[in-house]
């Protein structure tokens, strides 16, 4: 919420959209609960936390980029696992919605 607060400039936060990767090691329920409580404590209102469960994005050595919810899923092109993780290990703030100022 501290990161989000930097952009609020004193305004209340209506909603925050967050991407949670399957490999982030973050519980969506806990994040939801804690983010709302922290926002309240910081005087930022009671925002809706919209959590989007995103897949892991892999880049395979064969050149194929693919998405999978199960990190043990092989490359659909070559069937191999010689791949790098492009995303899915982080929590990413996608969107912050602030209240209107008059």
């Amino acid at each position, binding site marked *: 919420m*501290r*990161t*989000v607060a930097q*952009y609020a*400039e004193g305004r209340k936060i209506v909603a925050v959209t967050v991407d949670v990767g*399957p*490999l*982030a*090691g*973050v519980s969506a329920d806990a994040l939801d609960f804690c983010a709302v409580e922290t926002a309240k404590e910081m005087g930022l209102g009671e925002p809706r936390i919209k959590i989007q469960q995103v897949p892991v994005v892999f880049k395979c050595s064969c050149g194929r980029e693919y998405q999978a919810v199960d*990190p*043990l899923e*092989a490359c659909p092109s070559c069937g191999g*696992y*010689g*791949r790098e*993780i492009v995303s899915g*290990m*982080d*929590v*990413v*703030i*996608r*969107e*912050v*919605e*602030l209240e209107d100022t008059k």
Partner: protein
Amino acid sequence: MKDGASGKGGGPVVSKSARIATRNRERFRSLHLFTVNLIGAPGSGKTALLERTAREFAGRMAVIEGDIKTTLDSERIRAAGVQAVQIQTGGECHLDAAMVERAAGEIDLESIDVLFIENVGNLVCPSSVDLGEDAKVALTSVAEGDEKPAKYPALFVRAAAVVINKIDLLPYVDYSVERASSDCRKLKPSVEIFPLSVKTGERFAAWMEWIEKGREKARGRRARS
């Protein structure tokens, strides 16, 4: 978020803990330490691995011990002849970078080559928390079952090395080292895997070589700087 108003962002969330982790890493690297964050379930043999490592390691090492309660583990490590500092989290299920920073302040870092951080026994929560280490090592034992890498991918995608302990028990349990190793490699192709027995010492030498290699690499950083 771009213009300080409503909008769309994209960067990963950088927590306060991540900033302290970066500070830890810079400090450890400036001292040319090889630092290992050891993560494994309760009873997998984390402290036992470090006790044996302390006895066999030719270099100088220290251990930061993380537990919810008691100083039993740091006492075991000290009995093996190396510096050990105990962190008692009092309930926290994992160590964070600030705890490690404070504990490191109690160690004579100038006098060591390798620093082990033994995390709280847990395969989940410590996985994504950076402490400032060079390498995460996942420790699992054959008594736990060979599906652990598949069940806890957040840990195994980050582990530079995986130790499979208690191979002396293989005749008594249904555990396929091949299956576990294959899942580990799928999750992280570059992973180094060490099936071994801390108790009997079987195949322990390969683990010690890996530690030695890490130490050499950390020294190399010294040569270049």
